[in-house]
């Protein structure tokens, strides 16, 4: 890479100017507007509106379900990534392409079909509901939907790292007499761990903001199965703008904190993979 390019290319002023104006109009001004308006409230007022009983219940469900969903994805996503990179089996490429479905499928469609699958007469619900497992119209449904939307993150974060891993290290461990399990625990797992955490954080961040798929599969009962973004929409429909903004500021703060955390995690993870 040329660190300092001798550069006679035209168009920097034009493209940079357009980029900055467009970025400001579409992204920065709207974000700034929301924060500015929300800060028009006093701290006490903001705090009161952001921590109503209904809001607190919604945060608990949103973060709790997002955590369980991201954890599920961390476990199964790691297995899936491992299987896709290390093993050869019929249909491997097809499965690999399927992993992107949650990125491509609109969330409303995901919510619709998941709710149907787990409802009493759905393909999965007909077996699960008699066992007392209610996947649709319940808190479990929220977890199922959030697991679906976060699924690709762990797999896609882990795959390139697994592909780039030098197998010599494992061979050395084996030559030195370590069994496969021992090699995995003391050589492979520590290398993968930061990347798995990064994937977990990405899936968690995605789940916290998710709205579309959840409202289809959840029963959306206030204080029980209502997620935070839905509280914002309900408040808006009741013209309680300040309440909606207070919750939005909480979600925005958490999103930004997660963004920073993910950046730090990525830096930590990449330190493990520069040989």
């Amino acid at each position, binding site marked *: 890479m040329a660190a300092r*390019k001798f*550069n*006679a*290319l035209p168009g*920097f002023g*034009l*493209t*940079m100017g357009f*980029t900055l104006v*467009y*970025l400001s109009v*579409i*992204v920065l001004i*709207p*974000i700034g*507007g*929301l924060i500015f308006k929300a800060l028009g409230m006093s701290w006490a007022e903001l705090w009161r509106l952001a921590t109503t009983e209904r809001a607190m219940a919604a945060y608990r469900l949103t973060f709790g379900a997002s955590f369980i969903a991201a954890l599920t994805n961390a476990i199964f996503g790691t*297995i*899936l990534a*491992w*299987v896709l990179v290390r*093993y050869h089996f019929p249909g491997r490429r097809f*499965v690999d*392409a399927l992993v*992107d*479905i*949650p990125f*491509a*499928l*609109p*969330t*409303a*469609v*995901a919510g*619709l*079909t*998941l709710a*149907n699958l787990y409802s009493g007469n759905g393909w*999965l619900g007909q077996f699960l509901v008699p066992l007392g497992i209610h996947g649709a119209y319940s808190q479990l449904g929220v977890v199922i939907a959030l697991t679906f939307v976060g699924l690709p993150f762990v797999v896609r974060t882990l795959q390139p790292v697994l592909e780039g891993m030098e*197998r010599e290290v*494992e*061979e050395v461990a*084996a030559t030195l007499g*370590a*069994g*496969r399990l021992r090699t995995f625990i003391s050589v492979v797992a520590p290398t993968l761990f930061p990347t798995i955490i990064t994937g977990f954080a990405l899936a968690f*961040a995605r789940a916290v*903001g*998710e*709205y*579309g798929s959840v*409202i289809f599969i959840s029963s959306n009962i206030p204080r029980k199965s209502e997620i935070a*973004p839905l509280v*914002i*929409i309900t408040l*808006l429909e009741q013209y309680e703008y300040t309440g909606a*903004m207070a919750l939005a500021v909480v*979600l*925005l703060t958490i999103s930004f904190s997660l*963004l920073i955390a993910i950046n730090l995690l990525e830096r930590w993870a990449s330190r493990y993979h520069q040989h």
Partner: protein
Amino acid sequence: METDTKLLRRGGDTKSQRGTEESPFVKWLLITIALGFVVVFLLLPLVNVFWQSLAHGLAVYWESLVDSDTRSAIKLTLLIAGISVPLNLLFGVAAAWAIAKFNFKGKPMLISLIDLPFAISPVVAGLMFVVLFGRQGFFGEWLDTHEIKIIFAVPGMVLATVFITFPFVARELIPVMEATGTEQEQAALTLGASGWQTFWHVTLPSVRWGLLYGVILCNARAMGEFGAVSVVSGHITGQTDTMPLRVEKLYQSASAASMTAAFAVASLLALLALITLVVKTFLEWRTQREFALAQRSVSETPLLAPSIQVPSRQQ
């Protein structure tokens, strides 16, 4: 390539199989778990969409799609995507040119800012535009007196969609443009081409696959966006319902017929997702192959290496 590594692995395994590969039992157990997870969480939901939409036959399926409210939802979705994708395409190209071809202070910061919309909940994004343009918003009064409707109307839905799909093209294009470097453009300019000609005939062809990749991802999200659009739509049947919002409305009316109709509209969106995935897989396979070809020619003719290191400059 694949068979090569396979052979290599086989060769290595005979020496130290115990340590470098799991026992067949563990291996097949892991494959079974992974495939079970994929079937339950990915394949079944996808197949179910098409199955449910066709459960009452093709005639019913067709009838629910030609319903006038559904047709207007399809039109609105196409209109919104038709405006927001070109806007973000234009932005993506401009941003990638400025970021990839030039050095300046604050570049990492700018890239982070471009990624910002991915981090924000769609509902919060929608709320931002209500705060700006809604009745009680910053420009609410001014818009009211001039009788311009943005919130609960199409312009607001376009804005929300543009916000949500903002990073797609730029973030796909920046690394591709960085990889192609600037030498070819410099050469074209030296030979007397204008800046515009250089861009059109040199830069654009070399990044066309990355560009297409970004555009199809952007389009898929634009047509499928739900949360942000839902906040600013107003849900007026036949006027401000997009396809995803139409799915929700049909689902909520909870009759058996409207449920089938909801699945019918959903099946169109699922089809769009499948097409997106097929094109995406094809483009990835293509870039990988170009990359492999470039690497092979590098190893065969080391003297030429510097000029053909970059895959997209192959042709």
